[in-house]
Every structure is written in C-alpha cells, then in structure tokens.
C-alpha cells in the first residue's frame, strides 16, 4: 500500500486533510508530533526542529549551519517512518526529499484563497487587501524556504502527482480523490521502490551522523553502498576520507563507503593569499 505525502500552502489545511485521509484509509498519520522523538534522539530542542521547518536562517534567527543540521535530523526521522507502508505524511517537507520512489503518491492541496483571506483578516484584524498581501508574502516565504532547503520550488505543480484546489472541491472530496488514487496498481510498493525508499533512509541516517563534523557532505546510498561527496584541501583529503569512512562505516546497513573529495578551490585561493 502506498505512502501518501501531502503538501499544502497552509499547514492547518494539510494537517486536517492528512488526518482525515489517514482515518478513511486506515493508515498511520505521520506529522509534526513525530519531531518530539527526533528531538529526543538527537538531543536538540523540539521547538528548534519546528522552527527549522517554518523559517529560513537569518541574522537574528537560526544560523545556516544549525538549520541544515536540524533539517538533516528531520529528514532522517521522517524517512525512517516512511519505510513502513500505509502512511500519510504531512508537515515534514517530505514532498521535497522523498523523490524517485514509485509507491509514493505526492499531493498538493491548495486552500480556498477567499476563505484564507477572511481567516487572516479576522485573526489579524486586517482589511481584506492587507490580508491578501500577507497571504502573498506567506506564499513567497514558503517558496523561498523550499528553494533554500532542498533546491525545489514547492509551488511548482510538476513536483506532484496531483494538485487539488479547495476553492470548489471540498476536503471530503479531496480525501476521496486521494483514496481512489492510492488504490491504483502503480502506487503499490514493489521490491525496487521499497529498495529506493530504504536507500533514501540509509543515506539520511548517514548524513545525520556526518552533520556534526562534515556538514557539507552529500550522501547517496545504493543497497548498502554509500557514496559521500565532500570538499577539502588537497592536504586534508586523505584524513577527511578516512574519518568519513570510519563514521559512516559503523552505521547498521552500511556495507561499503566510497568518498569523493572535491578540491576546495575557495579555501585554497584564500590560503594562497596568506
């Protein structure tokens, strides 16, 4: 049975639909409550994980390094839950990093803009025009977040299998559409697609471990073989590769680690001026 990942332009909408879909389908719902366990495992404040999902780094907020680390922890925690079938996931940006897995149905839900404007206007005491502008700013902020975090524009419909607008179609109808779609044969897990998901989960586990010392490392997995890409000066190359192999090699599920080190041109240039 498939994994359903729901994204929305409004968090509460996604949550409501995800919970409803999980109920109707008899699936588990994976949402932001799962951040508590991730916070516990990685010994970080849960509030910071929530913040990392809502905001981009800034001078007065979270640093970029910390932000990326928290995102890596969130990715790992989410992917480990998506290894089981029959899951509806929302609120964890999974639509941006669970890619290339055929038994994942990715749905974007768009709130009714008129209702949103009304809600914003009443909750913030704004005129409809100001509420509309606020809505547009929120949309652009969401887009910026997804681009900075995962290099994808979350408003681009080509990243989803289905986009459903709630302007005319109500929530129950949207859930029905998802239920019917999830039953299609192409969303049934196959050995290959399950392997793809396991590879993503393994790569995320390794990345989470490497974040502390090697925050810029990029990790891919293929049936127990890890490929880690990082940058380093020529003189550090061997040492760095060895350290990465030691760290990653100890993680269950990792059979072999290959490290590709790219010359750090910027640091090299900086050092040559000293």
């Amino acid at each position, binding site marked *: 049975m498939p994994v359903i990942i729901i994204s929305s332009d409004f968090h509460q909408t996604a949550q409501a639909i995800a919970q409803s879909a999980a109920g109707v389908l008899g699936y588990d719902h994976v949402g932001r409550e799962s951040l508590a366990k991730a916070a516990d495992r990685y010994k970080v404040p849960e509030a910071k994980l929530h913040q990392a999902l809502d905001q981009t780094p800034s001078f007065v907020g979270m640093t970029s390094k910390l932000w990326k680390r928290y995102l890596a922890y969130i990715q790992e925690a989410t992917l480990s839950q998506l290894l089981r079938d029959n899951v509806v996931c929302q609120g964890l940006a999974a639509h941006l990093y669970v890619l290339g897995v055929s038994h994942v149905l990715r749905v*974007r839900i*768009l709130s009714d803009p008129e209702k949103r404007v009304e809600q914003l206007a009443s909750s913030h005491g704004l005129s409809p025009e100001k509420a509309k502008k606020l809505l547009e700013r929120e949309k652009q902020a969401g887009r910026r977040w997804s681009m900075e975090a995962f290099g994808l524009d979350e408003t681009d419909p080509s990243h989803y299998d289905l986009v459903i607008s709630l302007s005319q179609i109500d929530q129950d109808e949207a859930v029905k559409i998802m239920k019917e779609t999830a039953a299609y044969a*192409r969303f049934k897990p196959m050995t290959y697609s399950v392997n793809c998901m396991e590879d993503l989960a393994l790569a995320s586990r390794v990345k989470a471990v490497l974040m502390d010392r090697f925050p810029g490392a990029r990790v891919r997995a293929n049936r127990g073989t890890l490929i880690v890409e990082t940058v380093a000066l020529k003189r550090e190359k061997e040492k760095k590769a060895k350290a990465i192999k030691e760290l990653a090699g100890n993680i269950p599920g990792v059979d072999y680690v290959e490290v590709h080190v790219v010359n750090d041109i910027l640091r090299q240039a900086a050092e040559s001026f000293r």
Partner: protein
Amino acid sequence: MAIITISRGSYSKGKEVAERVAARLEYRCISREVILEASGIYHIPEIRMVKAIHDAPSILERLGGGKLAYIAYYKSALARLVREDNVVYHGLAGHLLLKGVPHVLKVRIIADLADRVLSVMKEEKINEQDARSMILKDDQERRKWTQSLYGADPWDSSLYDLVIHIDRFTVSDAVDFVCDAAGRDQFKTTAESRQKMDDLALASQVKAALVSLSQEVAVTSDYGNVLVFTRGDDRLARKIREKIKVLSRDIEGINNVEVHSGASIPPDAV
C-alpha cells in the same frame, strides 16, 4: 452539468484527455470551433484570429490595443459556445476566460519535458534538439500570452481545481479523475451559476461590440443589468451610450445599461 476546461502545454496529452472525457460524458468537445465562431460573427479572417490568439501581444500591440479586440471577440465566442453546459473546452486560457462561473471545472494536464520531447520527435519527425526548442518556445509564448493579458502565470496551480501530472497516470486515469470531479455537486449547474454564465456571456458580447470604439472599456452584467466602465472622456461615454442603444435591439438579455466614465473598474469586469 459542468463546463470543463482543460489547459495543457503542447504535446501533454491534454487534447486526448479532453476528447475522451467528452466522449465518456457525452459532452461537446470544442477548441478550434471558438476561432471559427469568432471569425464568423465578427467577420475576421480565421488566420488573423489564429495569429492574434496564439502569439503573445508585443508592447506596441498592447498600447495600440489591436490584439485586445481579438481577445474580446474570442472570449465572446467562447462564452456563447459553452453557455449551454455539457461541454469540454481545450484551448487557450479557458480557466481565465471563464473565471467566476462556479460550475466550470478547471483542469490542467502537465507532463515531463522529456516525454513531450519524445512525442514531438515521433509526430513531427524532427531531432531531439529541434523538438525541445519547439516545445520550450511554445511554452514561453503561452506563458507570455497569459501573463501579458491577465497578469497570471499559466503554471500557477492555484488557477485550477485539479492539476494532473500525466506521466504518473495513464490517459484513462486522468479521464477518470476529470469525469469523477465533473460529477460532483460543486460542478452541477444551479440557477445561480447559470445566471453567472449568462451574465458573463452577455458582458463579453457587449464588450466585443464596444471594443472597436475603445480598448479601455470594461463591462459587467448582473441579471442583465449591464454596467460599462470606461477611462475615456465624456465624449467617448456618449458614443458608447449611442452604440449601446443600437446594440440593445440586437443583443438579447439586456435589461438596463449604465455607462460610467472615470469610475474604478471592478476586478470581475470583462
């Protein structure tokens, strides 16, 4: 029963989906017919209509307003053709031209570029590079068209009720989605939604009749009470009133007409 508009990039299987939806629901399927209708009613050579509709307006054209007149004719013809419901329209910007009518189901079909390129290569018997250029140029032209006339990006999924990524589904799946959605209560014609469609058709018809006098004319209709807004001076307002007197005899459904010059134009005006 619904009016279904299917928007798609070229070679995205949108036409096939539209035709099969129409066949399954026993609806009319229209696309080029709108151009033929507009050409016939407004006595414009078909080829000129096609060029005007297909290519995005240049800055000069927007200033001169020539193309805007053709858009007005197209919109009037489209509204006329879909007024009776039970129709699938796949063509230019149906989701924008028929905005505000509740029983219009707005669907967009999207496909991966790689698959579209393969389709073009097969059908047009051209190489990959040429196929890619052709598709990208067409996409850019359509985007420019929509953006310059409506300030909207056709790729913005909030303009549609449903966006279907055809590569993950078969054409049959997409047809199922659309037919299911069309059968839902939200897209059934009610007395109120039919009135909205009638008002849109009437406003479009009046606009098309007035556009030769001035491009800066906007029209609304509410139960046949037509309001014409113009940015022009009193002289233009007088000309419009005179023309409308003549029009009222030929256009059915006009209860009353008011002309407002200098007033701000409502966002839902045609």
